[in-house]
């Protein structure tokens, strides 16, 4: 008896409380129900006629992509500083990065519950068709309202890169993040202490690398000197450019089986080219001689990868500079010293993975353009993210708190410099400075001050090389029909490529005997037509 009564009581209690919660939450998000945006809009447009100091802060909502390695905090110094200095009230909608695209896609597709501003977006993939169908504001039409952005583009010489972001209708739908120079943030990492121990020179070419690995193997027969991080795609994307190709899952142009000829400025079928054959010759040789980790076909996650390097099962890898610290901290061997090296020279010169000088940035959903204060909002966003003052806050924090200027040199606060996490990570975690999502202006020299001497040294070396990091090839302008056809060609081509790539690498297929059969198979799947489509739809 009593049990049933209590169950009913509990149920009514739940219903009651949840309705209360529902009410209160409705009042909290002035997004859907309450007329606050328009209210604040009218008040702020009136306010612009009143004296400056009486102005109410401009209120807007924004999607922020949250990475678990850098959890967002509302009370970060940079957020507080920006809100104070630019007189805005930002309602951050913090969304886990793994599902960010889902949430954005729903907001843009339905137009419901869309925020005023979406960060960390570009018009690749689905967003392109959403843009062409009018779900996103063509921000390039309002370039008069983005003076700071335009100035930065001119300063970095990115006019051409920017033009490449236009969609088929000749309009650009987002304000990308801007890089003055691409970073060399990852590449060949190997045990420097062992080079000295075995009397070897630092490798400059891929042949040198082969000799170094050979020596490592001879001294440590149970090891596999070269391992990979994540999957073969990481090795491919970082090494292929030196052989003049870029194919596979992370190929630079996204076609997965084509490559860009930087001299002729055309696409060619990279997956069946002689360059690729050459490339596979080299790596299958490593594999056959036990110099390359046979587990590389499976994903090797960060932990496993660290274990292999820390315990001396491997001595070299292609990975990122940020990851060296973790491995060195865990290694027990005396004198353990991992170092990153500039890109190695291959048949096509010394190149690292291609990089774009623009990245993900700010996007406005269609609904935002209906705000009475839309112009004011765009100008504000431009100021917050792209002005000298604003971009410095997102990158360095607040002057006088996180850093001081000594002439033109940046001096970080003592507690940051002495933190065990290092300057870069401490700035991120404690102050929110240097987050990919909010920092939209990247000045290489300025960023380098956050790292150790060694890293800036390597970056300087790389910057002095000839074209070490090439530009991302131009994306063809497909209309919906062509895009559909291209996609239907791409998938079987890529699947076949994957199977054969694995076969060639591990020696299950012979590069001498089976190569022609592979080429024929790819031609059957119309790789030539696929290439033609790419070349025909390039922007003239």
């Amino acid at each position, binding site marked *: 008896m009593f049990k*049933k009564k209590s169950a009913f009581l509990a149920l009514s209690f739940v*219903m009651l409380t949840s309705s209360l919660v529902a009410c209160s939450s*409705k009042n909290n998000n002035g997004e859907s129900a309450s007329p606050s945006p328009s209210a604040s809009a009218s008040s702020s447009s009136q306010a612009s006629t009143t004296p400056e100091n009486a102005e109410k802060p401009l209120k807007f909502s924004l999607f922020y992509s949250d990475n678990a390695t850098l959890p967002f905090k509302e009370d970060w110094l940079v957020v507080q500083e920006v809100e104070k200095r630019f007189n805005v009230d930002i309602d951050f909608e913090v969304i886990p*990065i793994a599902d960010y695209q889902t949430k954005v896609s729903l907001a843009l597709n*339905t137009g419901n*519950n869309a925020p005023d501003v979406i960060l960390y977006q570009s018009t690749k993939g689905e967003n392109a068709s959403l843009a062409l169908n009018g779900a996103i504001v063509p921000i390039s039409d309002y370039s008069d309202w983005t003076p700071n952005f335009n100035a930065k583009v001119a300063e970095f010489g990115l006019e051409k890169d920017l033009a490449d972001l236009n969609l088929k209708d000749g309009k650009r739908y987002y304000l990308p993040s801007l890089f003055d120079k691409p970073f060399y943030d990852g590449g060949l990492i190997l045990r420097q202490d062992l080079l000295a121990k075995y009397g070897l020179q630092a490798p400059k070419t891929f042949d040198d690398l082969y000799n170094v690995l050979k020596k490592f193997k001879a001294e440590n027969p149970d090891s596999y000197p070269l391992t990979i*991080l994540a999957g073969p795609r990481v090795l491919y*994307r970082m090494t292929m450019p030196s052989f003049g190709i870029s194919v596979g899952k992370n190929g630079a142009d996204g076609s997965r089986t084509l490559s860009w000829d930087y001299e002729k400025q055309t696409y060619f079928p990279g997956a069946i080219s002689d360059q690729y054959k050459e490339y596979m010759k080299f790596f299958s040789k490593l594999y056959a001689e036990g110099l390359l980790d046979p587990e590389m076909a499976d994903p090797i996650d960060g932990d496993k990868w660290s274990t292999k390097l820390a315990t001396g099962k491997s001595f070299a890898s292609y990975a*990122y500079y940020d990851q060296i610290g973790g491995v060195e901290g865990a290694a027990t061997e005396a004198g353990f010293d991992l170092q990153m090296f500039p890109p190695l020279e291959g048949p096509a010169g010394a190149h690292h993975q291609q990089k774009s000088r623009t990245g993900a940035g700010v996007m406005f959903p269609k609904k935002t353009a209906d705000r009475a204060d839309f112009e004011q909002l765009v100008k504000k966003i431009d100021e917050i993210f792209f002005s000298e003052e604003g971009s410095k806050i997102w990158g360095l924090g607040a002057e006088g708190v996180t850093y001081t200027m000594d002439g033109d040199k940046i001096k970080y606060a003592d507690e940051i410099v002495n933190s065990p996490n290092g300057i870069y990570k401490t700035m991120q975690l404690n102050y929110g400075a240097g987050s990919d999502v909010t920092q939209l202006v990247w000045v290489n020299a300025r960023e380098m001050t956050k790292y150790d001497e060694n890293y800036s040294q390597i970056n300087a070396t790389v910057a002095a090389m000839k074209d070490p990091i090439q530009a991302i090839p131009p994306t063809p302008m497909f209309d919906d029909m062509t895009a559909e056809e291209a996609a239907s060609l791409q998938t079987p081509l890529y699947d076949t490529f994957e199977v054969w790539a694995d076969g060639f690498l591990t020696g299950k297929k012979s590069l001498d005997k089976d190569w022609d059969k592979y080429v024929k198979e790819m031609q059957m799947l119309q790789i030539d037509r696929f290439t033609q489509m790419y070349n025909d739809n390039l922007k003239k």
Partner: protein
Amino acid sequence: MNKQRKYRPLTIGDVLINAFMVLVVLICFVPFLYMLALSLSSPEAIINNKVSLFPVGLNFEAYHQIFTYPNFFKAYGNTIFYTAGGTLISLFMSALFAYAMSKRFLKGHKLVMMLIVFSMFFSGGLIPTYLLISDLNLTGTPWAMLLPFALNQFNLIILINFFRAIPAEIEEAAIIDGLNYFGILQRVILPLSTPALATIGLYTAVFFWNDWFNGLIYLNTQQYPVMLFLRNIVNGTAMVGDGAGAADKSTIAMSIKSAVIITSTLPIIILYPLLQRFFVAGLTVGSVKG
């Protein structure tokens, strides 16, 4: 229940069966033990592959770190609320629905059954559903988590069949004693259905506990369930769009992943033994006395 059993000599069969059951228990239990060990070990020990089933270099850093995640406890509270509220609402509505559906003499019950089964296999799809919830003004409120998923067709069918299996004589006796249908449901049917209700309750609770997707699409940051956190931490470095590479760049320590898995799955696992006694109870225990 606890009758004294006479012991008979152990046979080889008994030994084999028991050994096999112990193995099954281990298969279920060891992964958890390993996760627990990882979450309590030092990063050095993990990277150097020293951790097996017991923590090496005991440290609570991982737990300390996740407890300092902004909103972690808030999200935890949200999940407990959704689970408790969702399960109660779901049982309440399912019981009312199923009891009516269990009466074969009701007109149209076949049609309703068809509707239930049809919606089991075909749904509107993501965007129509989203638009519906959004037009009902449920987005951004906890109701978006609780209401749309309160009725699960599969559970309903289980419950309907369970109610149908209860002998009609019991109900007839109750009617003669002057009970109306609500009274019968409350005083006769539901007390007899504890095994079924416990089973469905457990299914539903587990569903609400694990449900992250609906929370993601309908709710605001402050209302997220804890499973979204877990997802973000366990595969939170998956990166979309630009910069092939950022995904492989930032990694989260194994100890933290394990700690999050342990903290977010333990409560629902503890729930199971508590419901165990209802599963064992027989179907019509104590209703018709022989």
